[in-house]
């Protein structure tokens, strides 16, 4: 005879209501885990998008994401000629705001060379950039559709392709545009400013500047060897893909990651306290019944089982409801929520431990109940 199950069945509505409250708490914890993961995944998305092995940037910088980096546009040719390099491409990165659809959007503009490394390849819809001007491939998160036209700088661009889940570490959707257009946007002075510069006799900065050059190596080629070669050139620095990813997670998103991690820890602690309180209160309400059980000869294991099983049922149902809830609403979040099976299982493990620990208070109270309490009014 399972007393825990019978008690739950008898007070089913109350149990489910408690589970609902707990599941909302679990949903918040799972959301935070998902947001935490999303932050890291988002940060790495742009780095992984070119599918490059080596990043070449300005000397003594850790660009182009952790620090600003500017290198000559013809660097790509030099890199492409290196031993072991199969393919190379120039890239620019900048954040911009554009107004379309009645509101202002923050976008992450990625200048790419059409047909070269760095251009988006895995399209969700449409086609790659085919002309060297005024075509863009946008992340679906920007809310653009194929054929839409948006103003960027002094030009208007047409959406010819769509990609998914391409955002920067701040969650801004990526817009891929031809390198020349991106360079104009980033480096070309507005005509009045250019006229002033010319009038002052100052040199106009060359426009053929990029933020980074990416390279894909031939099978069997050593990324470290290519990096070492590039570093010897003094005016350039190079990082492997792994170093670039480490830089992003260790510096660019580290503070946000730690902030969310700490908040997640606090949430878990709060959940533990709430579960402990619920179990303790449930036990305290049953003290007379527990005293009666003791008086009629029930062993401690029966009483401990009653409390621990209910605690685990509460935690298990709360966890399951919470998981279902997050899976249903995760796409509503403005930023990506990435929940891996291992995260859900880890939380299940934590909830299990918390429930067992939380039952401890209730079990302690139950075992201290004097069976004589059952006697008398």
């Amino acid at each position, binding site marked *: 005879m399972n007393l825990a199950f019978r008690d739950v069945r008898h*007070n089913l509505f109350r149990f489910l209501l408690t589970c609902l409250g707990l599941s909302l708490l679990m949903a918040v914890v799972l959301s935070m885990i998902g947001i935490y993961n999303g932050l890291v995944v988002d940060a790495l998305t742009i780095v992984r998008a070119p599918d490059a092995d080596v990043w070449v940037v300005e000397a003594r910088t850790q660009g182009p994401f952790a620090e600003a980096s500017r290198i000559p546009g013809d660097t790509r040719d030099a890199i492409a000629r290196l031993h072991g390099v199969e393919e190379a491409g120039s890239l620019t990165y900048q954040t911009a705001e554009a107004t379309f659809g009645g509101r202002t959007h923050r976008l992450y503009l990625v200048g790419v060379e059409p047909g070269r490394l760095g251009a988006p390849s895995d399209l969700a819809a449409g086609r790659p950039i085919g002309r060297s001007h005024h075509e863009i491939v946008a992340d679906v998160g920007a809310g653009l559709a194929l054929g839409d036209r948006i103003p960027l700088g002094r030009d208007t661009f047409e959406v010819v392709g769509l990609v998914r889940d391409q955002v920067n570490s701040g969650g801004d959707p990526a817009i891929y545009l031809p390198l020349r257009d991106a360079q104009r946007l980033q480096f070309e002075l507005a005509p009045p400013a250019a006229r002033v510069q010319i009038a002052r006799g100052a040199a106009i900065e060359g426009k053929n500047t990029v933020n980074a050059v990416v390279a894909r190596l031939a099978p069997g080629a050593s990324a470290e060897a290519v990096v070492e070669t590039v570093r010897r050139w003094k005016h350039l620095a190079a990082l492997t893909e792994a170093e670039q990813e480490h830089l992003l997670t260790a510096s660019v998103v580290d503070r946000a990651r730690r902030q969310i991690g700490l908040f997640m820890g606090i949430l878990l602690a709060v959940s533990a306290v709430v579960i402990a309180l619920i179990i303790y209160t449930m036990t305290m309400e049953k003290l007379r019944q527990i005293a009666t059980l003791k008086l009629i000869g029930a062993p401690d294991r029966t009483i401990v089982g009653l409390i621990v099983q209910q605690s685990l049922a509460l935690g298990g149902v709360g966890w399951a409801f919470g998981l279902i809830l997050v899976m249903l609403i995760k796409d509503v979040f403005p930023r990506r929520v990435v929940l891996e099976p291992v995260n859900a299982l880890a939380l299940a493990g934590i909830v299990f431990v918390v429930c067992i620990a939380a039952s401890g208070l209730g079990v302690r109270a139950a075992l201290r109940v004097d069976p004589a309490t059952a006697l008398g009014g």
Partner: protein
Amino acid sequence: MAPRDTLVEISGISKHFGEGEARVDALREVGLSVAAGEVVALLGPSGSGKTTLLNVIGCILDPDAGRMVLDGETVFDGRWLRGNLRRLRLDKIGFIFQFHNLLPFLDATDNVALVLHLAGHDGATARRRAVELLDYLEVGNRKDAMPAKLSGGEAQRVAIARALANSPRIILADEPTAALDSHRAGIVMDLLRRLAAEQDACIIAVTHDEKIYDRFDRIFHLRDGRLESQEGA
């Protein structure tokens, strides 16, 4: 007529609470014996020690000194002679409470079957025996009812069935009729008397209910922790 077994035999039982000026001697060298088939009452003013005595006989409270023999087994002689008092209670003693104390989440049958289940009977046997007991106590028609749906009298009968489930020969009752009107109290007392006779058990009840004094074979009067007198055969 063959002499009946002595089921409860205590001698020199003492129990105190507190120390120094706060010391209260709840029981002072109390001795009594109750035979099978007897229904006896413990009477006395508040604080006289009757509930303490019931708790001691029920193996819930440790006496300071004395000797106690339950159903032929010496269970206390200056110290407990059995390690597992809960098992002792399960084997030898049935309890009937002032407020039936049925578990609200079990139906009438399962409340009774629980004791048998704890004693090691399988589920089917426990439920069959529970239904038999409920029928015997004339509440078989309410076997599937939850305690909240039972009347006071019905709930007390189910509680009595639970006390009898493991066939204990010692039944301790704490104000068994306090929550019942005089008519139902009379019915419950008649039932307890019948049980004592038919089950060859003894019943020791703490009561303040004067209406039922005449239903007891003997009445033990306690005052200030001492057994002052006894009435009856």
